[in-house]
């Protein structure tokens, strides 16, 4: 599944400290266009921080990020532009509670990109169809289940027509029976060629949809490879240990 094109997202030698604690230690990842990269690892391994550094919700002290060949300089102007191209889906959805589902989805296109409302609503409806929630357009987020909220959040991020989508534990806050509907939408996205970096504990998503799985441990990339390789014959003892704890029997 390796791609030969210039990577659309390059993470180069990222180092991030919270005070004395170093949470990212020289992390480098190249993500090819249309590639689905799944980042796994124990909590505290730095995988969420890594994602948050990619769209500069956190600032890494060292290293650089390239998006579509552009070295991102963290000035307000550049970040406001770059973040439009990097969709982010959060663990706790972070929908805007004072706006309807449609309002959430078109907020970015209308108020960031300046798209006319009518066109934005058409786009919004398409995206809500894609995530299976076209009948919820006028509903407020409080009326939705967690799985529905997360699907709206995905539609909201997609509405910016991003080059890359980042998923920060998108199913960790969901009841188990709601995980499937969100994962389903994500798999679909991957098949359509969206470039995705996904931090998750859902190993069957990694197995089904990932081109590459990265195992992070204590701020470093300990091991990476195709899902087949990672799940069947991991090299490192730590990887084996982690997978044995987290993998359901059938995998």
């Amino acid at each position, binding site marked *: 599944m390796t791609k030969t094109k210039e990577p659309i997202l390059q993470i180069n030698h990222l180092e991030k400290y919270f005070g004395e604690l170093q949470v990212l230690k020289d992390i480098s990842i190249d993500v090819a266009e249309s590639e689905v990269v799944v980042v796994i690892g124990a909590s505290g391994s730095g995988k969420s921080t890594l994602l948050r550094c990619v769209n500069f919700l956190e600032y890494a002290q060292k290293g650089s990020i390239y998006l579509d060949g552009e070295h991102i300089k963290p000035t307000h102007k550049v970040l*406001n532009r770059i973040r439009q191209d990097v969709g982010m889906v959060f663990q*706790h959805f972070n929908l*805007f*509670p004072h706006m309807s589902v449609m309002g959430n989805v078109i907020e*970015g296109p209308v108020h960031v990109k300046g798209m006319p409302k009518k066109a934005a609503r058409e786009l919004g409806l398409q995206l809500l169809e894609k995530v299976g929630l076209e009948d919820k357009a006028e509903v407020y987020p409080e009326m939705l289940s967690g799985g529905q909220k997360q699907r709206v959040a995905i539609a909201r*991020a997609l509405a910016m027509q991003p080059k890359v989508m980042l998923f920060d534990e998108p199913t960790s806050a969901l009841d188990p029976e709601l995980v499937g509907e969100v994962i389903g939408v994500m798999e679909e996205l991957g098949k359509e060629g969206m470039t995705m970096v996904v931090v998750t504990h859902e190993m069957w998503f990694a197995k089904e949809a990932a081109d590459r799985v990265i195992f992070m441990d204590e701020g470093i990339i300990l091991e990476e490879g195709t899902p087949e390789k990672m799940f069947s014959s991991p090299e490192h003892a730590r990887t084996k240990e982690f997978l044995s704890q987290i993998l359901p029997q059938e995998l």
Partner: protein
Amino acid sequence: MSNIIPWDFSVIPEKFLLFRDAALLTLEITTLGIVTGLILGLIVALGKLSQHKITSKIASAYIFIIRGTPLLLQLFIIYYGLTSIVTIPPFPSAIIALGVHNGAYIGEIFRGAIQSIHYGQMEAARSLGMTHRKSMRRIILPQAFKRAVPPLGNQFIIALKDSSLASTIAVPELLLRGRQMGSSTFMYMEMLIIVALWYLIMTSVLSYGVHRLEQRLKVSDHD
């Protein structure tokens, strides 16, 4: 003992409407004071939350000074104290004093409300590419205003009652009217009770209005 006049509460209904203009003036001072306070409060709250150190310090100093001194003193400073630079008539003096005073309290109400909005809201807005300013305006403030309604209602009631201090600088609002009527009729208690009734009516209407607004704005805030 000779000049004691017995109370005669039967005059209350007939004298009641004689206070209407004074009550309207009370309402005007309060409304304009609150509007000024809301504008100042928003500026103070955003100033205090600003990353810019000096802006934040200025906002803090403002709150420190205003909350730490009596409104009556602030009123006197504006009406009497400033006379060597500028003479401000009683009515605008009262509005300015009430506005500046409430600005500090409302500023703290807004700040608390803004800070109570989960940081994930700001992150979601920023990750769509919104500027900080737009995120505030579109995402944070609308939610914060909703949360600020109950404490604001409380503050408005306080402001309504505090407007009575304008009586000390000869603004013919309710309390001054009551004292004047009392001294001209020697029916102090009766007139003061009328004043009390007017305040009660206005505070009741105000709290009912705020209550209704709260009900209408009731939107769940679980994330």
